[in-house]
């Protein structure tokens, strides 16, 4: 039964999405509420792109509701090394995505709801959207002390941030999306959003850290489903449409032609890391080798996620200088990425004199370098 109704929804949606004039004849003429069936952050971001690029929003506005499995999402012009703990994320298998809108870094998991408000560029109005959300929350739980700050955050009890906002404006369309913390894992959130990388100098948009709280903590009877239902209800009322949420499958090429290409693009290294604005690293660390403590100083310039210039200062003669030069030369032009650096460094070792001491020193240096990435 569920399958039939969702299929029907998809077909209806397909008609609405592909023949915009049909929108006038369909029931949802003033607005459309859609919800993603996927928890993949890249697929959901791709849906946003698709709607932004392909839908005619002249006479219709769209609300898109989505949730993701654990992921960190950085803003368009941000530096992931500055914003989050990439090492920890790799260990915990938490994905990193870069969205096309501006703003700061957020942590998503299934306890967080994402809402995207699509309008024409003329009708782009963030305050209205956030007020809608607050109205919905208050209708659901009148005792909640929630309000919109002048930074377009939604604050609980005047103090805790429960929602952050970002927006994207194109030629004719615009979207404003925001998060809503219902029951996210705050421990993981705070640990992944703390960058361990030191000595970074960059003009990338910095995030503004804030104390967060889950709505669930304020009222344990609240669930994500209740919240998104309440928001959909309020949206439907304000746009004078049916309170009907159409399910959308972000992998469906028929309803969303070209969506899989968009998803793939969002996953490429060139987009996620390569779009990082130019930055430099100037740092030093200690290495312990056979009861000796060594000071190492590293300077690197990274552009488009690749190392443009690299300089490693080691104690005199600890490693053959020719080998150090070789390392710096090989790193130049390669991705600022631990995997690439590891394969590079270990491959270089093949053409060195086969000396166990040299090998262990080399491995030690490389492991420390990789910690910077």
């Amino acid at each position, binding site marked *: 039964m569920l399958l039939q109704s969702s299929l029907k929804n998809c077909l209806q949606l397909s008609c609405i999405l*592909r023949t915009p004039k049909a929108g006038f004849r369909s029931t949802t003429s003033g607005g459309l509420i859609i919800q993603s069936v996927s928890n993949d952050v890249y697929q959901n971001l791709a849906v946003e792109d698709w709607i932004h*690029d*392909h839908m*005619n929003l*002249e006479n219709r506005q769209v609300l898109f509701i989505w949730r993701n499995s654990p992921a960190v999402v950085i*803003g*368009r*012009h941000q530096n992931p090394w500055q914003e989050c703990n990439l090492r920890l994320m*790799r260990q915990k*298998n938490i994905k990193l995505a870069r969205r*096309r*809108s*501006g*703003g*700061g870094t957020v942590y998503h998991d299934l306890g967080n709801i994402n809402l995207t408000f699509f309008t024409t*560029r*003329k009708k*782009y*109005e*963030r305050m209205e959207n956030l007020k809608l959300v607050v109205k919905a929350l208050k209708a659901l739980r009148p005792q909640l002390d929630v309000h919109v700050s002048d930074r*377009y955050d939604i604050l609980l009890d005047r103090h805790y941030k429960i929602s952050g*906002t*970002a*927006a*994207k*404006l*194109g*030629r*004719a*369309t615009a979207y*404003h999306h925001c998060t809503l913390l219902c029951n996210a894992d705050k421990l993981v959130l705070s640990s992944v959003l703390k960058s361990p990388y030191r000595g970074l100098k960059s*003009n990338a*948009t910095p995030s503004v850290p804030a104390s967060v709280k889950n709505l669930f903590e304020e009222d344990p009877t609240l669930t994500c489903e209740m919240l998104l239902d309440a928001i959909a209800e309020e949206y439907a009322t304000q746009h004078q449409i049916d309170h009907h949420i159409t399910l959308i499958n972000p992998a469906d090429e028929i309803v969303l*032609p070209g969506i899989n290409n968009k998803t793939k693009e969002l996953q490429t290294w060139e987009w996620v890391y390569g779009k990082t*604005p130019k930055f430099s690293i100037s740092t030093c660390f200690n290495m312990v080798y056979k009861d000796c403590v060594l000071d190492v100083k590293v300077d690197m310039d990274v552009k488009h996620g*690749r190392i443009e210039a690299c300089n490693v200062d080691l104690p005199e003669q600890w490693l053959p200088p020719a080998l150090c030069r070789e390392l710096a030369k*090989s790193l*130049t*032009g*390669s*991705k600022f990425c*631990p*995997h*690439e650096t*590891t*394969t*590079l*460094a*270990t*491959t*270089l*070792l*093949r*053409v060195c*004199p*086969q000396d166990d001491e040299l*090998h262990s020193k080399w*491995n030690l240096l490389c*492991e420390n370098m*990789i910690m910077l990435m």
Partner: protein
Amino acid sequence: MAAVTALRSSCRAAGRLVCIHRVRSCSSIRFIKSKYVCVFDKSALKFSHQQRLFRTSAASCGQIVQFKLSDIGEGITEVTVKEWYIKEGDSVSQFDSICEVQSDKASVTITSRYDGIIRKLHYNLDEIAYVGKPLVDIEIDASKGVAPEEDVVETPPMSHEEHTHQEIKGHKTLATPAVRRLAMENNIKLSEVVGTGKDNRILKEDILNYLAKQTGAILPPSPKAEIIPPLPKSETLPAAPKDKAHKIPVPVSRPIVFSGKDKTEPITGFHKAMVKTMSAALKIPHLGYCDEIDLTQLVQLREELKPLAQTRGVKLSFMPFFIKAASLGLLQYPILNSSLDESCQNVTYKASHNIGVAMDTEQGLIVPNVKNVQVCSVFEIASELNRLQSLGSAGQLGTNDLTGGTFTLSNIGTIGGTYAKPVILPPEVAIGALGKIQVLPRFNGKGEVFKAQIMNVSWSADHRIIDGATMARFSNLWKSYLENPASMLLDLK
């Protein structure tokens, strides 16, 4: 000045020169180096935005137009320029992205209003740009004239289907920017193409038909032309395939037009290191030796052991057997597990059998190794392989896993192939490439034909210290262990 007179005469009815200026728009055109005078008038005097207002004189240099930063909304007056998509000298089409600006959590893509060449960028990266002030200077092609000025926001998305006019030899040619680009790429003069659309406008299939007549071939629509503009229903697209079906090309021996370009990329990072290793490997004189192995018994054994390994949480492939057998062989022929120094003066016999397994990843070839196979059981090797494989596919292999290898096996058979010519990875002196397992007919001891599971192995060894006989004997020993797995039990340590 002739141009100005022409203008004045055409607007005599109006009494003065006006250009379209919708009140809402904050963008405007200011002409520098213009050939005519323009007076802005916010009055109600309006011309249909489809009409040409200016006649240009036949001058060679285009007019420079200052494209100003339009209103972002929400009362925002300044933004930061975050990324330029174009640089000075690039040519742009209408609706191409020019730059990305950011203002208070909103990222805005600024698209070009004109076709032309970028002459000046008014801001550097990370500088503050002001709404209403010039963002870039665009030189517009003199023959094309100025596109009608409109508030971008009010234009419904279908508007780019509105036709930008071209005046060539006094004949108005209607064509969309995408069609004009297609014509430009193929060096076609629009005036020579017959338009079959409304008002004689030139559609994409008109260009394609024109080209087909020229080259005698049916050309596929250029993918670039389909992408710009990025909207779902360009009415010309569905029409194109239908039209093509009716046209039968007349074969004419003309060169096919191909607009692809060579692409040069620097070799960086991982590939650079690979170049280095392989160049060093070139210095090693390679001895090749190949053979075929009957794995019928091993296949059966593995089938029996697979579920047992599964209960212990390990996926059992053929590799652990190949690796263990190799190690047993190396115990008898330690020279294959050695290393020759730079000057070829000394051979070092390595005590540990750190057998490398070539892995194909997204980045390319990586060779992690299983350490100390000589003291590992087949099960332990299998579980270590599982660990290396999952780390390898996640791109998380450590330096320790990737260094210290003494001998390598490459299972190219998982992708395909039978015999190969593997290249030795320095500082090792031998490598084996395993082809795919095929079911082939073979004769048994009684002269009967039976179904055999055959795999080919191709060895390469450093001929400076290893001779053919040694390689052959090692291979035979390895082969005997695998063809009769029970014999491995006798020599297992």
